[in-house]
């Protein structure tokens, strides 16, 4: 008997597109369910269904985006929510819901568009894999869950989608499960991110308990709206923090796990064990950016109670972690030889930029870099996939070379992606989005250290990308079989992404900061006066020089030289110790192995030992005493105690794992007792049921 069914109460103010927004994640999830029931040989229907469903989501996303855009242009309502009660406990309801606002709209379009391109690319890349249908099943589930994260208006719904995204990441990293390294990497990814997620969960239950709602926006009573925020700000959580700040930090722990921030970044490089389209979609463009998106979503919570310096403790932590991650990962990327691992460390580093951008400059600054990065990093990964494919599954950049001749399309698109990532001035989107972050860091009035860290990171980025491109596309060929260009179905998505890697810069230049205006909900007039802001010109010049310096140094060291695979790296010859440390990823994995993992294993053994020896020992001792007592009694009572009963007693009393002898046991005796018990019970029941 269901008394209060999960009442579905759409807000009637919501527009049609807002009301059907749930279809955007639901359709790919449904498609994934259908594909799961398909058989292995049904490859074409599986791919068609996955691509078709995501196209549908893209279409709806574009309509939703257009709707928000129209509202924004007319300065009308830009945030619509649809909420409903999932279930109740006590008098409290557990609410889920979705939201359509500029932040969600732009992310929806990005995720479904980049996702669709990578789906198409996968048709070519995975063409020879025997588990092709399963691949599209997982990919569809991922896309649906990720789109769910984007539209969630309830932190619980967001967390649920977030965890399912984590599951698909686990399944896809371990897609080639027969490789022990892939299976181990999948596990590592899941557990490392879950480490952050348990804090996130605590943040959620705290927020829920404190504000009484799980919804972000709910006509003034959501957790990100005035009343709740004021309440959270006045609650003290100890250590001089407000509840808002403490909850913000707990949520950031979850974001740090997902987005590979220090010190939880260790899973992301290993995640490269997954197929390359997965690396592009999940571990570069979308899922790892979900942490950044989460912080952007709960920004009012992070920001509430900002002091005179414009920052809160929570945001300050985010800024420092982001800046440190940006440099730390960029340093490691310099000394890696696996084409995908270089990109993985680069992703970690860029996620650091996004986090720092959010904390230092606000939602728009971080989100702008998130969007541009999604395009150029997806492009780079698809390019890397094309290279790996062309070089017969080789991933070591020292065993490549001169591919600009054999793979011209890959080379051109890859070069565009690389320049965008480096932040090459004017023509590439990365320049504008990174410049926004540097500018924000420069004007932060708590410390200038993050600015210098981020600027140094920019130098390193230009350097390691040049090194990689020189190894892969210049010099001469050092592989075995000749490389070949990839099929059109793989090239086409790369070309489209390359276009956006350049063009997207237009939406966030100082002259026309459209994205900032859109996300902050104000008008965006076009004006070159934007460049006239004091200091901005110098900053842009400086950041351009940094990029040129990085490119120049990279070319100087690696240029057209093509060292043999066995030959040590140029930098290794000059600074072998530093090189070794960087190459070994600054020993973070080793450090965790010696501390966290060793403690885990040791404490597990302690738990087991306590069980077997201490608690089990006490039980055994008690059992032994009882056994003694029973034997003593037996000596006295042997004359008149029924044999079978006594035997049973003895059997019972000699309990305890260590002492109990394995007795054959006379089954008949036990059964006799059992039968008597049943008959007695039946008699009692019959007797008692008389009127």
């Amino acid at each position, binding site marked *: *008997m*269901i*008394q*209060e*069914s*999960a009442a579905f109460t759409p807000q009637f103010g919501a527009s049609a597109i807002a009301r059907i927004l749930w279809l955007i994640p639901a359709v790919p999830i449904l498609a994934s369910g259908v594909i799961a029931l398909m058989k292995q040989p049904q490859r074409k229907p599986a791919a068609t269904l996955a691509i078709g469903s995501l196209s549908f989501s893209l279409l709806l996303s574009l309509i939703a985006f257009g709707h928000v855009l129209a509202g924004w242009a007319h300065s009308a309502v830009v945030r619509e929510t649809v909420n409903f009660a*999932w*279930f*109740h*406990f*006590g*008098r*409290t309801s557990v609410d889920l819901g979705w939201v359509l606002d500029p932040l969600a709209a732009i992310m929806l379009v990005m995720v479904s568009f980049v996702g669709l391109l990578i789906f198409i690319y996968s048709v070519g890349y995975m063409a020879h894999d025997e588990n092709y249908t399963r691949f599209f099943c997982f990919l569809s589930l991922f896309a649906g869950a990720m789109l769910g994260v984007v539209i969630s208006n309830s932190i619980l719904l967001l967390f*649920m*989608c977030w*965890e*399912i995204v984590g*599951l698909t990441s*686990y399944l896809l990293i*371990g897609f080639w*499960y*027969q490789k022990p390294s892939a*299976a181990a990497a999948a*596990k590592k990814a*899941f*557990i490392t991110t*879950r*480490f952050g997620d*348990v804090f996130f*969960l*605590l943040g959620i*239950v705290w927020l*829920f*308990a404190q504000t*009484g709602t799980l919804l972000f926006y709910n006509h003034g009573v959501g957790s990100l709206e005035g009343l709740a925020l004021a309440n959270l700000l006045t609650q003290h959580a100890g250590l001089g923090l407000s509840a808002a700040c403490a909850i913000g930090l707990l949520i950031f722990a979850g974001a740090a796990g997902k987005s590979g921030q220090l010190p939880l970044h260790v899973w992301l490089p290993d995640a490269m064990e997954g197929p390359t389209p997965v690396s592009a979609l999940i571990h570069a463009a979308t899922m790892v950016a979900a942490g950044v998106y989460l912080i952007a979503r709960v920004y009012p919570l992070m920001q509430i109670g900002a002091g005179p310096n414009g920052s809160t403790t929570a945001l300050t932590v985010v800024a420092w972690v982001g800046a440190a991650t940006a440099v730390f990962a960029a340093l490691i990327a310099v000394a890696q030889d696996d084409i995908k691992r270089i990109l993985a460390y680069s992703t970690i580093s860029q996620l650091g930029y996004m986090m720092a951008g959010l904390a230092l400059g606000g939602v728009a600054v971080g989100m702008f870099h998130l969007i541009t990065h999604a395009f150029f990093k997806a492009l780079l990964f698809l390019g890397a996939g094309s290279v790996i494919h062309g070089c017969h599954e080789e991933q070591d950049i020292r065993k490549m070379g001169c591919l600009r001749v054999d793979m011209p399309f890959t080379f051109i698109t890859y070069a565009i992606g690389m320049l965008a990532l480096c932040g090459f001035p004017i023509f590439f989107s990365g320049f504008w989005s990174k410049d926004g972050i540097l500018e924000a860091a420069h004007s932060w009035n708590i410390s200038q250290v993050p600015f210098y860290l981020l600027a140094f990171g920019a130098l390193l980025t230009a350097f390691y990308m040049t090194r990689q491109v020189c190894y892969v596309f210049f010099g001469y060929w050092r592989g075995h079989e000749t490389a070949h260009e990839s099929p059109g179905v793989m090239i086409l998505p790369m070309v489209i992404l390359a276009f956006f890697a350049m063009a997207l810069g237009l939406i966030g230049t100082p002259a026309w900061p459209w994205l900032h205006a859109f996300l902050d909900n104000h008008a965006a007039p076009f004006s070159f006066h934007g460049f006239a802001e004091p200091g901005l010109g110098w900053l842009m010049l400086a950041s351009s020089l940094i990029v040129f310096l990085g490119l120049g140094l990279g070319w100087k060291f690696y240029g057209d030289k093509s060292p043999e695979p066995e030959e040590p790296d140029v930098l290794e010859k000059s600074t072998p110790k530093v090189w070794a440390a960087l190459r070994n990823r600054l020993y973070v994995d080793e450090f965790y192995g010696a501390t966290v993992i060793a403690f*885990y294993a040791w404490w*597990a*053994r302690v*738990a*087991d030992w306590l*069980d077997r020896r201490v*608690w089990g020992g006490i*039980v055994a001792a008690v*059992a032994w005493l009882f056994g003694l007592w029973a034997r003593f009694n037996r000596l006295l009572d042997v004359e008149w105690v029924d044999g079978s009963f006594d035997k049973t007693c003895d*059997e*019972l*009393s*000699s*309990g*305890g*794992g260590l002492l*109990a*002898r*394995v007795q054959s046991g006379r*089954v008949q005796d036990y*059964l006799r007792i*059992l039968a008597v*018990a049943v008959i007695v019970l039946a008699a009692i029941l019959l007797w*008692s*049921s008389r009127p």
Partner: protein
Amino acid sequence: MNAMTTGFPILTLLTVLPLIGAVIALFAGRHARAVAIITALVCLIVSLIIWTRLPADGSIGLVELHNWAPSLGVEYHLGVDGLGALMLVLSAIVTLMSIDAAHRVHHMPGLFFGLVLMLEAGLFGSFTALNFFHWFLFWELSLIPAFFLIKLWGGPRRGPAATQFLVYTMAGSVALLVSFLAVFLSTGGANAPGTMDFVELAQLASSGVLTQMVTAHLGAVMPWLAIGVLAGFAVKVPLMPFHTWLPAAYAEAPSPVTMLLTGAMSKMGVYGLLRIAIPVFGVQIAAMRTPLLVLAVITVVMGAWAAAAQKDLKRVFAYSSVNHLGYCLLAIFALAVPAPGAAAQASQAAALNGVILQMFNHGLTAATIFWFMAIIQMRSGGLRGIDDFGGLRKPAPILAGLMGIALFSSLGLPGLNSFVSEFLIFRGVFPLSWVAATISVLGLLITAAVLLTVIQKVFNGPVPEHWAKFPDLHHAEWMALAPVIILMFLVGLVPQVILGNINPTAVHLLAHWRF
């Protein structure tokens, strides 16, 4: 109380049905399994009917009340609320699954299935009884078939395991019995017998009269009586350090029996805490809340951690069960606190809803995991070491996929059943005791590590040559399991199907408890 009954005695019917089935099965020889399946199916249907006939306000319904032995204060008093009814449904599901898993019982099948059904009767009896005497009879009665099922059909070290199981639980029962005798003696007057009725005792306790009565008769022993009652349940659930019987019993019992032990019998302990210990000894338990919370946190964390050290898959899942039921204990002890104010009451409601749903979810999920263990052992000639397998996903993709769902349910993945109850538990516990909640989340993390290690070692990696032909689930097998998997998704996605009945009961219980 006068004899009264409302309508058809469906609860008595439910308890008697498996007993009849048991007798038939005893003489049915090789048809015993069929008899058992039919009986269990009928029981499931009856239990579902009961589930739909509960009073809307969450109080106890379907009451059957007759005089039994008035001079001893014993009445035949049955009734269920949302909590009891959910346990009936769970017991029926788990028993059916267990019988389904027991494919190949060649050794005395009649007796095996007879005992399983007798155990089911014990479960039904104890989840419907509202008088201590009656309840205690079934509580003990369910032990006997469990003991023989382990003793006669168990693994190589079954003897000590069965004995330890029985002696340990008996010791707990003695403490329980002594406490209730004391209560019985104290509640009696000069010429009226005392009471053993749970409803009456709960009323006496919530008005504070019970403590006065006991103190008047026996002195200030109420805390000791509470400890005695807690000891009985602590062994059954179990609460660390009263759990040492469990790993051996779960591991040595044949897997279908382990399903019953963990899926249904462990719930008798949690149920007892909610039906008996908290209503009657709420004040005393609230006074001992801190040490009890410490033990519950230890159970959650160390249970998960001990699972990480095991090499025997059944022991891994046994300790994992300790961890999962630890969340129930955590929530029960956390909510045992006087709660003025709506915020604290909301947290209590969250915790109690979480406990009851977690009982169901754990029963379902743990039984499913041991169902798979039965399947795996049957196909591998009884092997159950974590390192005995590898790469099984290749030859047995359906097995790997469905067991993977069960394992992810166990580690609390959203969209599956356990997430909802664990979320509710943490929602409830965090405001009531943030330290306990914060340490206990470690259990969530370690459980994930443990279960993913199982998947990694059993299903992933290269396939050893001798497992290259490991048979996948065949139609009959996965079709038997499909409803359970669907139920996991259903509870995970639409928890209202269960919470709709549970929440009124939780609210009703909380309104009557006194801490």
